């Protein structure tokens, strides 16, 4: 990966705020990251921390109003947030695609899966019905669905969850996009199917040279598939590092807590550490670090000021937004014995 190449996708100080009767909800509040071609960027965080809204905002799929966007999302230099709706439709599904979390409900129940893929091909390419259908069958073959010709004529309810997620991937990749946003692509699947889907995504990414944004709360998925990771908390980015650096030396107390709450195979079973409390509701956010209430290292300063991202890397880039980085990283963490990376 060439570090100096212009980024494929640059998200710059993205804000997605919702105006509600109870005040402004800052679901995404000044998030920045870049994505290179061929790279997988993980976006990690608990439920409700703004991962999905970030993904939807990149494709401008959050209805405005009630949402308001700020900042920029640059794809090959042009700001997607400023494009016309028509130009945006040319990008959705064509240049930037998305896979959703629930394969059970993201396919139209009354349309055959082949037809659904063919539709999306016909939207972006000037091809006939037959050619689009042939392409759909090819896509189904690419995502390793057995007997693609027969399966193309079936309805979603005739397929298993794993198959449906494969169909979703085929649908998302049908127009050979440059960026794929995968919003928890494996959450609703069995563990064995999860591994298959991750492997499939990795293989297709290599073959097609896509940039992938992998949104997940599963650190196992991150370790397996990502190059770099962004950790989000309450609508903000709190840490960003390469996968190796993050697992070896997690710096933000939230990241460390997330890792501690993961079961490890090489230790005797004991009670998993949990993070007390919940992600604060976005409209409850006030002054200071959003994690302060739940943080074991919180200082008075944490409640008064909002920490900004600082580079704490010995080499390269390891951004952390925390006042207590030094204190936190010197306390032995439960996750301090990372499994040997394969």
């Amino acid at each position, binding site marked *: 990966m060439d570090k100096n190449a212009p980024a494929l996708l640059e998200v710059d100080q993205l804000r997605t705020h919702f105006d509600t009767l109870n005040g402004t909800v800052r679901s995404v509040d000044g998030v920045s990251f870049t994505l290179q071609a061929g790279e997988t960027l993980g976006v990690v965080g608990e439920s409700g921390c703004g991962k999905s809204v970030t993904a939807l905002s990149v*494709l401008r*799929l959050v209805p405005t109003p009630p949402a308001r966007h700020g900042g920029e999302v640059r794809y090959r230099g042009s700001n997607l947030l400023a494009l016309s709706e028509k130009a945006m*439709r*040319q*990008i*959705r*599904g*064509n240049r930037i*695609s*998305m896979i*959703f*979390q*629930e394969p059970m*409900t*993201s*396919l*139209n*129940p*009354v*349309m055959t899966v082949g037809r659904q893929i063919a*539709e*999306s091909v016909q*939207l*972006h390419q000037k091809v006939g019905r037959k050619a689009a259908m042939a392409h759909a069958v090819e896509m189904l073959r690419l995502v390793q669905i057995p007997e693609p010709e027969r399966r193309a004529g079936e309805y979603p309810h005739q397929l298993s969850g794993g198959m449906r997620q494969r169909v*979703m991937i085929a*649908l*998302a990749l049908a127009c050979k996009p440059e960026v794929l946003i995968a919003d928890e692509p494996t959450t609703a699947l069995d563990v064995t199917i999860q591994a298959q889907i991750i492997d499939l995504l990795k293989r297709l990414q290599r073959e097609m040279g896509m940039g992938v944004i992998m949104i997940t709360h599963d650190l196992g998925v991150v370790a397996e598939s990502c190059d770099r990771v962004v950790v989000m908390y309450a609508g903000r980015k709190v840490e960003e590092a390469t996968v190796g650096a993050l697992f070896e030396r997690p710096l933000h107390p939230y990241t460390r807590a997330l890792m501690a709450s993961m079961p490890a195979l090489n230790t005797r079973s004991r009670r998993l550490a949990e993070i007390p409390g919940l992600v604060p509701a976005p409209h409850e956010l006030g002054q200071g670090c959003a994690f302060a209430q739940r943080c074991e290292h919180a200082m008075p300063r944490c409640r008064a000021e909002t920490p900004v991202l600082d580079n704490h890397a010995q080499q390269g880039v390891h951004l952390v937004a925390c006042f207590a980085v030094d204190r936190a990283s010197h306390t032995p963490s439960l996750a301090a014995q990372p499994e040997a990376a394969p």
Partner: protein
Amino acid sequence: MPRWLRKHPTLVVGGVLLLVMVLISLAAPWLATHDPQDIDPLARMKPPSAEHFFGTDAMGRDVFSRAVWGGRVSLIVGLSVALLATVGGVVLGLVAGFVRWADNIIMRLMDGLMAIPGILLAIALMAVTRASLTTVIVAITIPEIPRVVRLVRSMALSLREQLFVEAAHAVGTRLPAVLSRHVLPNMLAPLIVQATFVAASAVLIEASLSFLGVGVPAQTPSWGNMMAEGRNFVAVGFHIILYPGILLAITVLSINLLGDGLRDALDPRLARQL
């Protein structure tokens, strides 16, 4: 009989009854023993006989022939109103469900329409137009539309949040295509059921309008007209209103049975319970 039909007896009974009524209406020119308009002053108020199956009315017209012809009016009105109200309701309902600013305007208009009893609104509409089959159909359609709009809007609101509709947007589909390919096909079953109930109610309202004298022109044989003319002679010629009444009841019953049967047959959740 195929198995799925045997599991839905109401569907079969309703369908067969309605089919019989449709066939009778279609075959009216051949079934009718007399010209429905023919007046025979010598054979007034005759009870049913071999010559006049259902007897004759106060002007000596053959009740059987008029009843057979009258079915056409009822069925044409039922079918047209069901079609028109469904199409109009789908368009308005989809717009209300998907276009935020239009929602309030359309739904408050519909609330306004629903506040007026349907038959009253139809009478009012008939009062400002000239009586004909077309105006009757329009006058019945307008009060029926709000029911369809409400149904379509509520289904549209829930379908709008479905992931596959969002996914359709995410691959760059235009709104009209999303509506016609992804939203509308997913609401067909309840719509068909609703359409049958609209048809049944339209048949009844048409008969009521004719009975009240504001329906189809008085010389047109329709069940409502026949009963309106017969009501003055109930004591001496009960048969004049009896037969059109029975036919009307059978027709409405058959459409309602068909609707109930369709609802059970098309709703997989209900089917499993039964």
